[in-house]
């Protein structure tokens, strides 16, 4: 049994359904990210956990207690918002101590706790400043300290880094993870940034159109996406459509060239059109070692990305991207050049269901 249990959660608005059939168990101390594009229902789900939205159906339990209809101020759930939401009329220390004052904790307890939180976020000397005197990164750290000060059972973060610039985002991301590990607090993190989700999470819930597409560890989500959507949303992927030739052998024909997949074609019928996905880092321009796949195509495009050179090779209707490390002594192939690409059969991800589109 998880610390946070969500079962059959649904949220319907007048004209649309924001979340459907949402099921999730989050273990104590686990860091789970909700990942998906805008409008996929991730924030609505988070807001239902916080109590700001009432579910149309389903239940939310924390520590076995049903909190589905409980008002937000009686859930003991800490929340960090994208826009920081610090109280402008209060100093940093007053902001951090607000929840403790509301809970009528004695002053002798509030002061040390506030200082402890400020030290945790590495801003011990800024207690007397007002929010407008802090940078965006500092404000978000104060917001995190404020949410943690009340010792919530679950910490919710709603795209907390979206409003910050890239460099601060990375450093604050690492800080959030370090604090979460140190305190062992159960955390739900909403983001549309796959890099954030992959680097922070114990598990990722990938969402689309109000539904869960896949739940798994970052390794599983990245390496073994179950649907075309997950494959294309997380990392860079080439999705190729082909016709199943022999499901027993795992053979599939892409633009007339046969390749082999190690798994995923069980139950498929010969002649059926299926999608397969390939990560750019697994495809190479070298000859395959042993029994790997090889395909002949023409270089369509070459992108110089600094340490990496991304080459796009077209076979016919399908194309694949491949990454090679930049080498100043080797000239990359030119557009129009005929090349052979190779990849191991284990790298061929056969996506669930028949190919669409």
């Amino acid at each position, binding site marked *: 049994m998880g610390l946070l249990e969500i079962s059959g959660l649904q949220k319907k608005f007048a004209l649309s359904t924001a979340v459907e059939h949402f099921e999730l168990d989050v273990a104590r101390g686990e860091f789970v990210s909700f990942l998906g594009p805008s409008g996929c229902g991730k924030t609505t789900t988070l807001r239902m956990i916080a109590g700001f939205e009432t579910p149309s159906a389903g239940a939310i339990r924390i520590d076995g207690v049903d909190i589905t209809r409980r008002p*937000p101020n009686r859930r003991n759930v800490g929340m960090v918002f994208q826009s920081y939401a610090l*109280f*402008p009329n209060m100093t940093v220390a007053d902001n951090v101590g607000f929840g403790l004052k509301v809970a009528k904790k004695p002053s002798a307890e509030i002061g040390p706790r506030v200082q402890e939180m400020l030290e945790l976020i590495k801003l011990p000397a800024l207690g007397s400043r007002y929010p*407008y005197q802090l940078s*965006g990164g500092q404000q978000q750290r104060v*917001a995190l300290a404020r949410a943690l000060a009340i010792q919530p059972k679950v910490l919710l973060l709603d795209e907390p880094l979206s409003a910050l610039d890239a460099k601060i985002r990375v450093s604050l991301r690492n800080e959030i993870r370090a604090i979460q590990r140190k305190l062992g607090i159960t955390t739900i993190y909403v983001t549309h940034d796959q890099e954030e989700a992959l680097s922070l999470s114990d598990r990722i819930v990938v969402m689309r159109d109000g539904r869960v597409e896949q739940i798994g560890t970052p390794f599983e989500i990245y390496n073994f996406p179950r649907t075309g959507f997950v494959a294309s949303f997380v990392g860079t992927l080439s999705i190729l459509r082909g016709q199943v030739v022999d499901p027993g052998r795992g053979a599939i024909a892409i633009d007339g060239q046969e390749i082999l997949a190690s798994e995923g074609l069980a139950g498929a019928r010969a002649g059926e059109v299926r999608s397969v996905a390939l990560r750019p880092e697994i495809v190479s321009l070298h000859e395959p070692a042993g029994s790997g796949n090889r395909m002949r195509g023409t270089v369509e495009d070459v992108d110089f990305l600094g340490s990496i050179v991304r080459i796009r090779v077209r076979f016919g209707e399908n194309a694949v991207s491949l990454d090679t490390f930049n080498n100043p002594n080797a000239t990359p192939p030119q557009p129009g050049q005929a090349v052979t690409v190779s990849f191991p059969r284990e790298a061929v991800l056969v996506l669930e269901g028949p190919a669409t589109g």
Partner: protein
Amino acid sequence: MTRRTIGSWAVMTLGVLYFFLPLLATFEFSLRYRRGVYSFEAYRIVLGDPRFHETFLYSTLLALATIVVGVLLVVPTAYWIQLRLPRLRPTVEFITLLPLVIPAIVLVFGYLRIYNSSSILPMTANDRTTDLLLMFSYVTLAMPYMYRAVDAGLRAIDVRTLTEAAQSLGASWGTILLRVILPNVQVAVLSGAFLTFAIVIGEFTMASLLDRPAFGPYLQLIGANRAYEPAALAVITFAITWGCMALIQVLGRRAPGKTAGAH
């Protein structure tokens, strides 16, 4: 100096002359109580008049009560509309504008008809309940200014997120309103309060028709019977109103969270 700058200064000078010349003339006239010399005699007489003290105190107390009731009515209403009922905003704005459209004389006749001594709710039956009726009528009169000031203040802050942040920290509705929302719209509320004060202190129609000893009817009485004292009273009233405006400016500059953050 370019022609454009000269034109701007000319318009500015004309505007200043238009507004300040009558006031200067009034002030100058108020100093002529004694023949041949300028003196503050008219001010001395007015400020020494016990009726001035009584009516000014009465109107001040009524203004303070109006501000308290107005704030208690308007702040939660404007907050709730912003938070939960934004679709009602045009309707509420229309209602709050009605006191500007309906003349005070019509309102007060309406009150007298509904709350006269032979009605179900005889609020004009004695002085205290009439004071109460007058205070409520001032709340109505000041509504357009108070509502607009508070609404503008609420629009300047992220009401929804601040409310949710406070809720997630365990705060009840009362705590959120008193400790999070109200301090952040403090300047707006004070602006509304000073405007209310300025309206109530000089209001004549309602106080006169409800027969209450307010400052407005006193101004009218003096104006009808004396020569120099009304001019002195006009200057005093201007000073009070301008004092209120200056306080709004000072408090507006002092408000916390006004300066942009270093992002």
